[in-house]
């Protein structure tokens, strides 16, 4: 087993620069141990996708990513026949086909002979695997990230079910493809719509919220080792206060880091009101938010 216990998950994730809370580590440990997919929910920018990347790094597995969107279909997600290649091959081997049927006396016989060869054209050679098929036919286990699954259509969700429970897929011409290895599947959702009960039943659920201030400080310090202790504390306190406001878009972790980075670039080691106000546009991405926060900034620092 890749992880010994929950503590080990935390330690290994930290070695690839991802700080996981006890809850995250527990769910990840269970998912790996029981080979179940994880469905991650949470606000934008709290590290949902990052968790998948970190896991692929610390497990030393390839990360296969499928970004979902409206209109995503099997041909884009699972496999596609390479029609162009099939057609070109048919052209190139035309003589050979003529040879196969040259001594056929009747038309039905000729058709029979071609039929006996038809597997040649619907074989692995002409299947172009897409992320989902790649994930289960890879000889080494992979991490499969199905990002923003809430953006996909209900049809796609229905067809994910087979994959998520048995890790197998059915291609009509070739039959059912059994998995060579079981991937670690991570689905993320921003709650654009509710997922079906059937899908939820197959997954472990994990909600990642904005991190506790202490953990966030640790994250910023890890990403920017040179930063002064005082600046980090002030910065995170302010960010936490800003998140408490009613905004169109709340600042996420990457924005905390960007803010810290820009303050370091300005060679500041503490947060003052004028500096904060001048660099606020790294944190607030809408004009209306910016004005709102700037008004109350003096109380937050």
């Amino acid at each position: 087993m890749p992880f010994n216990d929950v503590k080990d998950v935390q330690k290994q994730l930290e070695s690839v620069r991802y700080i996981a809370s006890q809850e995250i580590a527990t769910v990840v440990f269970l998912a790996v141990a029981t080979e179940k997919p994880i469905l991650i929910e949470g606000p934008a920018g709290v590290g949902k996708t990052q968790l998948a990347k970190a896991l692929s790094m610390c497990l030393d597995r390839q990360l296969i990513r499928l970004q979902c969107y409206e209109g995503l279909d099997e041909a884009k997600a699972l496999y596609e026949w390479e029609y162009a290649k099939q057609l070109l091959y048919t052209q190139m081997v035309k003589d050979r086909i003529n040879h196969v049927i040259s001594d056929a006396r009747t038309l039905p016989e000729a058709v029979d002979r071609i039929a006996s060869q038809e597997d040649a054209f619907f074989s692995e050679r002409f299947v172009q695997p897409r992320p989902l098929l790649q994930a289960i036919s890879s000889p080494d286990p992979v991490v499969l990230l199905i990002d923003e699954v809430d953006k996909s259509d209900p049809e796609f969700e229905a067809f994910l079910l087979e994959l998520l429970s048995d890790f197998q897929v059915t291609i009509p011409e070739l039959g059912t493809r059994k998995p060579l290895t079981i991937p670690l599947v991570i689905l993320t959702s921003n709650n654009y719509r509710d997922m079906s009960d059937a899908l939820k039943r197959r997954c472990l659920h994990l909600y990642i919220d904005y991190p506790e201030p202490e953990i966030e400080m640790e994250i910023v310090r890890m990403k920017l080792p040179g930063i002064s202790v005082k600046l980090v504390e002030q910065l995170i306190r302010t960010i936490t206060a800003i998140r408490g406001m009613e905004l169109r878009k709340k600042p996420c972790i990457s924005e905390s880091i960007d803010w810290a980075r820009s303050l370091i670039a300005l060679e500041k080691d503490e947060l003052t009101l004028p500096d904060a106000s001048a660099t606020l546009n790294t944190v607030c991405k809408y004009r209306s938010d910016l004005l709102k926060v700037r008004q109350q900034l003096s109380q937050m620092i």
Partner: protein
Amino acid sequence: MLNSLIKFAECCRAWDLRVSTIEVMDCAAQLNLVPIRGENDFKTVLRANFAKSRREQKKFDQVYHLYFHQRPIPLDHDREAVSGEIVKEGIEKLLEEFVNPENMTEAQHGFARMIQGEPAAFLDHVQRLQSAEEKRQKAIKSNLAQLSGKLSLMLAISQMTDRFIDQVKRTETDPALRRQLIDHLSDRAQHARSLISREPDYYTDMLVETGDTQSGQTDLATQPLSTMDPHLMDDMKEMIARLVRKLKDQMARRYAVKNRGSIDVKQTLRRSAKFQGVPIDIRYKAREKTRAKIVTLCDISGSVWTASKFMLHFLYSLQDCFSRVRSFVFVSDLVEITDLLETPQVSGALDRVMSNPGINTHARTDYGMAFQQFKHQALRELDKKTTVIILGDARSNYQNPQAGILSQIREKVRRMIWLNPEPQHTWYTGDSEIRQYRKHCHELCACSNLSQLEDFIRRLVL
């Protein structure tokens, strides 16, 4: 352990969380895998298996707290403390002596079980009471069905608790045990009451909420729709027409790129005839447009009507972006106006809406009743491709809001969006039920002026 887990799952189900047998089995297996060092570990495992969305987590937390935290446990600092087992026995004795199962009502039975540490039946009873729908009355409207149900339940609890405590005082001689029994009984009663008085609750931090925003557009775009002058209406219509053209342009460009589908074998072969059968010119199928269905539900009472009118105008001008738009309007009774609006002259048709015989503009707005009628008329036709848009100020004249119906609708559809035409600072005041309704929406937007309405429509179609 397993026994306790199964009983807990039963409570979850009674509180309207869907927990399947498979999930209970998974959970039991997982508890053996993780070293449980503290309560948090235990709760994390249970929660990852039993509550499968952020929304449900609140209900889970309630049941969890009720089930695992309120069992008769002796106080540590009390030297005379009696062990939990003895308290339990005491309670069982009490119930046996006192309660005659034959002539107990369902509510009394539920509460008696809850005192014994098995709240499932009681939760189920409260849950049904809370999701009960108001019956339709002809003459005088009242919203008391649910309230009176709750009231009689409250009374039953108080009576039973009083009788039990009385009994304990008379018969129990051991003072420590007596105190603990009384503590336990009043604690349970307290919990039962809070379950009844609180509405079902959900975490709403995944809700998209767009409030008032400042923007640098023209006066007309930011003028409140509710105070719109009649002579500005024509300007307004022209402005909408302009916005509609712009949006359609953008849509067309986007589809041209996105629309290339898989190869069209038939056409490619036909073209290859030109090149001695060599498929040089490869043709692709155009992908079918996946278009959303829209169902709108508009309050048309008083000042809200202007906002509803513009929203409908906007939607119907963009009708070819959607596969179907159905519209309902209500004051207290619901009327479908889809047929009326499916004409090229939407604005003219909108002016005729008010003269529809089914609409009684003098009635008092009643959201609960409108939702109930909507459920009976249209719930069957909703599917996962439908977006429901409700436009209204949620001012329901203190009548039963019946928010549970929205939760049922939400389960059927892709997205549920509430547009509130009031300025944001008045949303949660007075008889507005928006606090109840927002729990069940995916998105809550302000739409008090044209610019906000445009923002919303843009997000909807693009």
